[in-house]
């Protein structure tokens, strides 16, 4: 695997690369604006938002946060091992990263299924329109992240791997972005109203 020393103090080389960080900020702004819109909508009908919020499973939300953060922890560990040229360990941590990501999706599917069974669909009310739009948009990011990580894993697995540390760092930054977005979604949607 090719490794080069990157000077992160250079404004043009944040960890993960400047292009990825532009995307991260665009995503954070998009989700941030949508969440703020949700909070302002709640001001117009606080009782509806409070009663709707009570239909959400805070335990599921908390476990999902634990799963995503644990996944992020293994991702950070994987990048660290790769930088230290310990490829086998890095691959194991990358697999753990993906496993916890998949577990997040499994639990989310169970949660979605319970909502659909209860008839709480996107058109039920304003709260659930925000709930479905924001969480589904986040789930799409997690799925895209898993596809990227799978591609990185198989890239690293090759005997004459051409995967660069910059590629792995960029993938890691995308994966951590899913954590950051969830850390904003979870308190606002599941806890505040």
């Amino acid at each position, binding site marked *: 695997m090719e490794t080069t020393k990157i000077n992160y103090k250079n*404004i043009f080389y944040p960890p993960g690369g400047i292009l990825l960080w532009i995307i991260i900020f665009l995503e954070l702004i998009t989700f941030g604006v949508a969440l703020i819109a949700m*909070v302002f909508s709640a001001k117009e009908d606080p009782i509806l938002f409070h009663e709707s919020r009570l239909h959400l499973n805070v335990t599921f939300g908390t476990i999902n946060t*634990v799963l995503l953060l644990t996944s992020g922890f293994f991702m950070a560990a994987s990048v*660290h091992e790769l930088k230290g040229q310990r490829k086998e360990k890095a691959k194991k941590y990358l697999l753990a990263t993906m496993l916890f990501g998949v577990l997040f999706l499994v639990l989310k599917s169970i949660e979605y299924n319970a909502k659909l069974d209860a008839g709480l669909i996107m058109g039920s009310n304003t709260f659930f329109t925000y709930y479905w739009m924001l969480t589904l948009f986040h789930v799409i990011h997690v799925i895209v992240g898993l596809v990227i990580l799978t591609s990185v894993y198989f890239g690293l697995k090759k005997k004459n791997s051409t995967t660069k540390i910059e590629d792995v760092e960029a993938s890691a*930054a995308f994966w951590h972005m899913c*954590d*950051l977005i969830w850390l904003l979604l979870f*308190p606002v949607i599941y806890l505040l109203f």
Partner: protein
Amino acid sequence: MTKQHIITWVILMILTVTSGLVSQSVAAFVVPVILLLAAFKFIGVAFNFMEMKKANLFWKILIVGYLVVFIGIVYLAM
């Protein structure tokens, strides 16, 4: 895996469980506490897992600035 990664993960777990427990309370301080805990977790992931602490000051200001504006608006609107 570094000691710092492990410490960060443990703190994130404690903050996550605390958020869930605090949200069950009906006290007036619940909203600022939940937002503050979310902000700490956000900073923990950005600086320790994404290695933003190694980045140029510009990126650090940008990420903290974003967080302050977001949390500030949500808090004032609640």
